[in-house]
């Protein structure tokens, strides 16, 4: 890994999942708020890891340092062969093309078609002038269609994204990330805006992505039962500090109370 740590030239972007390594990462926002304090962690290629903590604990900041949406103040972020904290501009966009991401609010353009929303996933593989002229290659179109098919949303491809239900929107967002053919999948509270059955369906989709497509998955959750049920390993954050790192399924209620910094409440679980 050390030999390829110096930049994209040194690496052939290998297929297969990428490991993620954060070393002493601190994030201080321009307004003075500290998002992360000296977080170090190593996620192996192909793992499915949950990041658990209350809102404001730094979960969103953590996943956003992995694709450089939030720049780190100090420390290093290594994703596969790339040092994300050192990249800017074109090279950063190139790496982001290999890192899919889904969001709590789905982040779809509601008035655009499902097709165009998923086409966003092909941006980093397409020259800007081609996008500007509306030229789409046949391979890109096929990737969009197969990504939509894999989440069961192909029949809605020409409809408006805004006309879909919450669960359908999140599936389209997953298709958008999958059309990137990524090595890593990030998810920031992907089920917090969904009702319980839909939440379980979307978590199952993510687990399927992890096993069938062989991707490293990092998913933010604030509900303990989802973390136990769907992920193999759990990272606990409190006030921007890493306070737990261990297996998810065997994490005890006491472990969660330590992460939350308060007794367990009924709203900490989703239920079936």
């Amino acid at each position, binding site marked *: 890994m050390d030999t390829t740590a110096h930049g994209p030239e040194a690496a052939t972007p290998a297929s297969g999942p990428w490991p993620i390594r954060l070393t002493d990462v601190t994030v201080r926002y321009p307004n003075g708020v500290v998002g992360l304090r000296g977080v170090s962690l190593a996620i192996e290629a192909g793992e499915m890891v949950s990041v658990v903590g209350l809102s404001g604990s730094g979960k969103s900041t953590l996943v956003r340092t992995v694709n450089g949406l939030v720049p780190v103040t100090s420390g290093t972020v290594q994703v596969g062969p790339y040092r994300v904290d050192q990249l800017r501009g074109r090279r950063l966009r*190139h790496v*982001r093309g290999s890192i899919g991401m889904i969001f709590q609010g789905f982040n779809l353009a509601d008035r655009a078609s499902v097709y165009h929303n998923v086409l966003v996933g092909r941006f980093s593989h397409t020259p800007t002038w081609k996008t500007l002229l509306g030229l789409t290659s046949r391979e890109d179109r096929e990737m969009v269609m197969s990504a939509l098919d894999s989440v069961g949303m192909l029949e809605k491809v020409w409809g408006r994204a805004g006309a879909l239900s919450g669960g359908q929107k999140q599936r389209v967002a997953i298709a958008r990330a999958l059309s990137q053919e990524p090595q890593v999948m990030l998810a920031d509270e992907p089920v917090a805006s969904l009702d319980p059955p839909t939440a379980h369906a979307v978590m199952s989709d993510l687990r399927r992505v992890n096993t069938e497509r062989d991707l490293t998955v990092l998913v933010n959750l604030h509900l303990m039962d989802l973390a136990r049920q769907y992920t193999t390993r759990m990272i606990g954050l409190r006030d921007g500090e890493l306070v737990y790192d261990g297996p998810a399924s065997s994490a005890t209620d006491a472990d969660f109370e330590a992460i939350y910094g308060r007794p367990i409440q009924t709203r900490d679980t989703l239920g079936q």
Partner: protein
Amino acid sequence: MTVSQLSVPTRPRTWPRVAVVVGVIVAITVLTTLPALGGVNIDLGAIARNWGNGSERIGKLFPPDPSILPRTWKPLLETLEMALVGTAIAALLALPLSQWAARPTNPSRSRIVVRGVLNVIRAVPDLVYATILVAMVGVGALPGVITLVLFDLGIVVKLVSEAIDSADASYMEAGRAAGGTQTQINRVTAQPQTWPVFASQVLYSLELNVRISSILGLVGAGGLGRLIDEVRGFYRYGALSMIIIEILVVVIAIEIASNVLRKRLR
């Protein structure tokens, strides 16, 4: 349950706010009317003294003289052509400009330059553009069209870019996370997102153009305005009122059409 049984919280007192509003209105009135303070000089007596001159002319407007109509068709067509061509060119230019002028679609500092230039364009009155352009490119429809393009750009870019600024732009983050350039994100997601407000503003500017292009001829920039100037010069008030009625009919027709279109856009 009657009202007396409910424990309604006591209504907050509003008289201090009312007092402030009344005070401000009184202060502004005094400041703008006292001549010693440089207030505007409005002499209401002038209305009474000069009323006769105006009412006499208004009287001459009736009855409208339809014999002028055959002569109006060509300038009317020219006015409509100017309005349509001006709107079309302005729409093409406004599409990228309004994205460059809004923060979500253009986070870089170049946004400030685009906004500054458009503020200048908007500050100059349309008749000033027409006068200068007639001198520069000659009498006819061309200076009129350029005037309308500049006028439309000012309105459409301002209103559309402000709509982009105030709209939810969470999809931008997804585009950035996928490794897209700002141009790619704007083209594929921001453009369909702002399409309805853009189309609505372009239709509005078309309405305004018909009205404006009918008077641009006063300074030699083509269209009905030239004819208006001519009949006014010959004191043919009946013909003038006929032309005014004609413009009114056309403007209302275009407003109805664009309202129908706008409803379909929602």
